[in-house]
């Protein structure tokens, strides 16, 4: 009895809060995708004020729901290839970001995991620290670094003009978006990779070396397969937020570099076509769920295979 009371007292307050301020808004947004936009943006109301009593009346009934609910916004998404193309482009940006993060994060995580114990915490802290500085500041820093006045821009343009091409601009391009996405998400890749690599049994590598495996073979046959759970976890942690990013392309991407998040922001704040914005958000959620499911399924499959082989 007391046990039940304790459980109830502990879990209800946070549960109630999150149902009201997370679950309910999410469901309302899903539902909004099936509604009509309002005359002045937003949503067409489902209720109206009764002129006689001044009370709110629900206008939608079982007979007339077709006047209030529609698949129009979904049709628009399918009819106009532009939106799907932008989504595919965003998937591509997120994939590229993930791959670069693996390429950059792997050596770093490996090195930290193989360093003497007393340095590990510091090296790890140095990876996490930039993540805790304000997100906008990190984007802004790249505005300076990639700006036309920067040493990097000047150096690149020196080379480019030497080969007889027009000078290029780095800022407000897809290139800037990818660089910044990698920068913002790199710690998310290093942490799970490190957690995995740290647990590896070094005796395996020594044994392989004794048996004549080259450094390359030891990596591809032992370290890499064992580290895959860490790679998948890191990939999910990078890919998911990168896919939904709107601030990076908004600030640093120009017109060429926009992603699906920019379109969602535009629908909600500028065009104010909420039903279509909701449809786009559902598409983004779908992409996120797909990726999360994929990472979980691959992880589980590997585990099963491991159990089978003893």
């Amino acid at each position, binding site marked *: 009895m007391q046990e039940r009371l304790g459980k109830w007292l502990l879990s209800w*307050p946070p549960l109630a809060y999150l149902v009201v301020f997370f679950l309910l808004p999410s469901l309302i947004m899903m539902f909004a995708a099936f509604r009509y936009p309002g005359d002045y943006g937003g949503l067409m109301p489902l209720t109206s004020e009764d002129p006689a009593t001044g009370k709110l009346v629900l206008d939608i009934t079982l007979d007339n729901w077709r006047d209030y609910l529609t698949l129009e916004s979904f049709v628009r998404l399918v009819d106009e290839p532009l939106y799907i193309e932008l989504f595919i482009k965003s998937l591509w940006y997120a994939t590229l970001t993930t791959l670069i993060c693996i390429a950059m994060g792997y050596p770093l995580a490996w090195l930290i995991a193989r360093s003497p114990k007393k340095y590990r915490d510091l090296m790890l*802290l140095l990876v996490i620290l930039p993540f805790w500085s*304000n*997100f906008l500041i990190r984007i802004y820093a790249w505005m300076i670094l990639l700006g036309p006045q920067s040493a990097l821009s000047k150096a690149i343009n020196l080379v480019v003009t030497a080969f007889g091409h027009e000078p290029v601009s780095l800022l407000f391009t897809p290139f800037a978006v990818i660089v910044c996405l990698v920068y913002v998400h790199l710690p998310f890749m290093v942490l799970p990779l490190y957690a995995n690599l740290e647990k590896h049994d070094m005796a395996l590598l020594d044994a392989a070396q004794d048996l004549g495996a080259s450094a390359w073979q030891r990596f591809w046959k032992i370290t890499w397969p064992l580290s895959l759970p860490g790679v998948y976890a890191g990939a999910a942690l990078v890919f998911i937020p990168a896919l939904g990013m709107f601030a990076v392309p908004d*600030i640093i991407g120009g017109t060429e570099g926009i992603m699906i998040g920019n379109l969602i922001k535009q629908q909600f704040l500028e065009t104010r076509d909420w039903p279509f914005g909701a449809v786009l958000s559902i598409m983004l959620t779908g992409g996120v769920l797909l990726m999360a499911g994929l990472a979980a399924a691959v992880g589980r499959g590997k585990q099963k295979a491991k159990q089978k082989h003893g």
Partner: protein
Amino acid sequence: MAKRQSWWLWAAAALAYVFLYLPLVIVVVYSFNDSKLNAEWVGFTLDWYHKLFNNREMLVAARNSMVIGVVSALAATFFGALAGIAMHRYKLRLLPFLVLTPIAIPEILMGVSLLIFFVLLNVTLGMTSIILAHVAFCIGFVAIVVRARMQGMDNSLVEAARDLGATPWQAFRLVTLPQIMPGILAGGLMAFTLSIDDFVITFFTAGVGSSTLPLQIYSMIKIAVTPEVNAISTLLMVLTLCLIVLVSKVSPGALRAE
């Protein structure tokens, strides 16, 4: 065990560290640069900081950020600590899902759904809506830290207290709570940091006159790159750094819990 690593591995790691820190260092250095352009070093000045402290909008934004940060951190600590304890003690399904999903999904999804929610309920967008939104995404971070602390706790102490006749409430208040207090404190500081730094969710739930520091920075860098932004960025970095040091003093390992 400490085998020598090949030089290229060191080079790759060093490059990664340079990649992580160079941008931030440049922001800090140029905040003291006596030039309007973030291009080359001209000379030392504190002008940009001076300008900053005379910028009324910035000061209002800083005050808003502080109020929002403190209130949401307090509320999120309360809800998050309860959730963390509950998730450790009982096998729950819905609560862990609701606690962890807001952390896992792109922030923009939470931002737009809360925007619709507040507008449909006729809640005026402003400080209140921002705080309600911040609490919702901070609960998860506090819960994770507190749960990790609970997992590291020796359960036999609570059992001993119960055997010696303590009521569940007494056992909780006198044994469990003091033990997990560092976790709760660390979670609260983390929530404060996240709230102060949040841009995306704030962007969608803010209204007229409720600008925060990140929103102010956003509107400044959308117009032009000015060293004033470097100055506010440097100050924010120092503040965050202090908070991080505080968190790691209070509860080592909390930062890595996520």
